[in-house]
């Protein structure tokens, strides 16, 4: 037995130690690492009926990844334009949702963190309540509002802004609003946590030195809040790129989200390896994008999730 293991058991006792070690190993290896590797492995295999799995035809192939780029073999087009378009649209839209959320949430996080008083607790309560409501129901609520005969259309037509009801769902406005709505709290809390620990004297010192309001934020608050901002942005981006419920409920009939393609491969086409390949592409692209942006803004990985 290696010395660090012996010390570990001495410290925790044999029974407690092995229980703890067992749970941690089950979680990290059995639930996190192995399933991801297994999915990666699966994505390189052809789609075979169950009896043939492990047989001579079960060899590694790049077929599933080729499909995303070039489309079905012998297809009329050079590239799989439909799926690729959905993929890039998903990424761009997720980035837009993230930026929108950041702009919307930064002021409120700053306000909540830097103001004292009883009403702040009420605001915090009001922030948390919507987050406890089911994701599906939140999307449903927005669908009622953005529907063709919904409250918003009735109001806008009544005010004379539009002559005919505007189709928010077909134009994807409902989808973006829904995605932004779903992850507001995940943007506010990390920023709030960081700004709360900012010493108010720093802001006042900057003000005494004659810094303008914009300058204070640019030079004092935002640099200080960078870990919170980056962890909020990362979470919102990852979750909205990987969202499934909001696009299914609020998306227009002609526009798809990339996760919906994955869902189709699994449930409608029963082509698991193809779906796994798409999932791997989504995961890897998102991670690379997040890492690139973090390098650009010089944020460490360790700051995320704090």
């Amino acid at each position, binding site marked *: 037995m290696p010395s660090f293991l012996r010390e570990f058991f001495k410290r925790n006792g044999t029974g*407690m130690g092995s229980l703890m070690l067992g749970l941690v190993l089950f979680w990290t290896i059995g639930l*996190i690492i192995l399933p991801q590797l297994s999915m990666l492995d699966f994505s390189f295999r052809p789609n075979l009926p169950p009896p043939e799995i492990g047989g001579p035809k079960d060899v590694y192939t790049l077929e599933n990844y080729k499909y995303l780029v070039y489309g079905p073999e012998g297809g009329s087009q050079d590239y799989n334009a439909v799926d690729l378009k959905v993929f890039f649209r998903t990424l761009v839209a997720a980035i837009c949702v993230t930026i929108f959320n950041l702009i919307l949430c930064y002021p409120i996080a700053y306000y909540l963190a830097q103001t004292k008083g009883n009403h702040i607790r009420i605001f915090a309560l009001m922030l948390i309540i919507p987050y406890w409501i089911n994701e599906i*129901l*939140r999307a449903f609520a927005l669908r009622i509002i953005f529907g063709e005969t919904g409250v918003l259309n009735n109001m806008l037509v009544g005010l004379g802004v539009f002559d005919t009801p505007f189709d928010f769902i077909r134009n994807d406005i409902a989808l973006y609003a829904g995605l932004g709505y779903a992850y507001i709290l995940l943007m506010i809390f990390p920023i709030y946590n960081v700004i709360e620990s900012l010493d108010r004297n720093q802001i006042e010192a900057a003000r005494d030195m004659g810094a303008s309001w914009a300058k204070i934020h640019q030079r004092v608050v935002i640099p200080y809040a960078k870990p919170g901002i980056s962890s909020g942005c990362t979470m919102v981006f990852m979750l909205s790129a990987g969202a499934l419920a909001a696009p*299914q409920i609020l998306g227009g009939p002609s526009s798809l989200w990339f996760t919906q393609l994955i869902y189709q491969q699994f449930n409608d086409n029963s082509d698991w390896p193809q779906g796994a390949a798409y*999932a791997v592409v989504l995961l890897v692209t998102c991670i690379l994008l997040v890492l690139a942006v973090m390098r650009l803004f010089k944020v460490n990985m360790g700051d995320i999730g704090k």
Partner: protein
Amino acid sequence: MKNLSFMRLSLWVYLAIFFAYLLGPLVIMSATAFNSPSFPRMTPWECLTFEWFSALFRDERILNGIWNSILVGAGTVVLSVAMGLAGALMLTQIWPKLRATYYTVIIAPILIPGVVLGISTLVFWDRINRMLGLGADSWLSNGLFLTIIGQSTFIASYCMLVLVARLQRYDIALTEAALDLGATHAQAFRKVLLPFMRPAIASAAVLAFLASFENYNTTTFTFGEYPTLTIELAQKVRYGITPAISALAFIIVVLTVFAALANEASLRRKELVAAARKKATVEELESGRLKLPGFLSSNAAAVALVVVACATVAVVGTASVYSPAQCIADIQEQKRLETQERIQELRRQRDLRRQQQEQQGEAAPQATQPSTGTGNNSGFGGVFAPGGLSGDGEEGIEAEQEPQGNSSGFGNVFDPNALSGDGEDDGSGN
């Protein structure tokens, strides 16, 4: 000074917009649960009804979904709190060089999209199942097992974060003292560490249950034969929405508000009691005659809690005696009249056009020939424009025959159809 008040004003406008965006949808959704049209809408308001609540309680699939959600939630809470606690304890004593890697691994599931977690769980356990040579109906491919496992993967990370925050304030010397005094490791854990961790464990458990209850992305791949409430709701919302879903949402909103207010009220009360103790003299404390503040005094959350409770009782009481039948009949009668008026209006227009046509017909006799054959005041007259209008007329009558028809303008008659069409497209698209 002027600048400052402008800032203040814009701040309040911003706050108002923000909270309208945040809470408005929930309020409107709750309101639609009490309106009688079968398509959830707030305007035009027709009749106050409680029918959608009874429709909800008659829905077998929803009730079954709630039961499955509770089963999954219970399993997830136990598994993820246990794993989260073990993971948090491990984080405090892992080899420093491994620490960063270990932390990345256990925090990663929060950032991995739920869809990916669901797929990887499904694929992995399917493979294990095949490797062990078990059939398709073994417990490893059971929807309940897969859902609990899949959800726990990332919910344990949330629990770990909550528990680590508390664990950082734990003095390890306490455990060492217990061990020195002859306690076994299990005893030291149960009697020293666990009581200290209890508040954090409770909040981790609540968090885990809520996260499990509302999870959709992971569950949608793993649920098998155990559709949870969220899955059932998603099916319903995708294939046609009814106010019964609003009714369920309203119940959940009310329960949430209750829980939040109760939590806030008890926190505030604890603060008040602590403050009163601090102010009290030693005599008062010792004689036990300390007057503690009442439950409702200077506790806004408690007052709100009582108000909400009274309102709920009042609503339930009204619901058991109230009957909207008369109102619904009135609305239907009104709609029938409106539709009749519209049909008459259409007929008048059609007659007018035919007259015009006949006048033109003298100039171009071939064009009018067919129209005089089928003509007359039936719904099928006209060759040119009136044909399109008669179609409208028919649809208007159809819509009127359905009890859920609309009350206002012609455009609205088509809207539910158009929307349900969308829903179908959407469904087949997925």
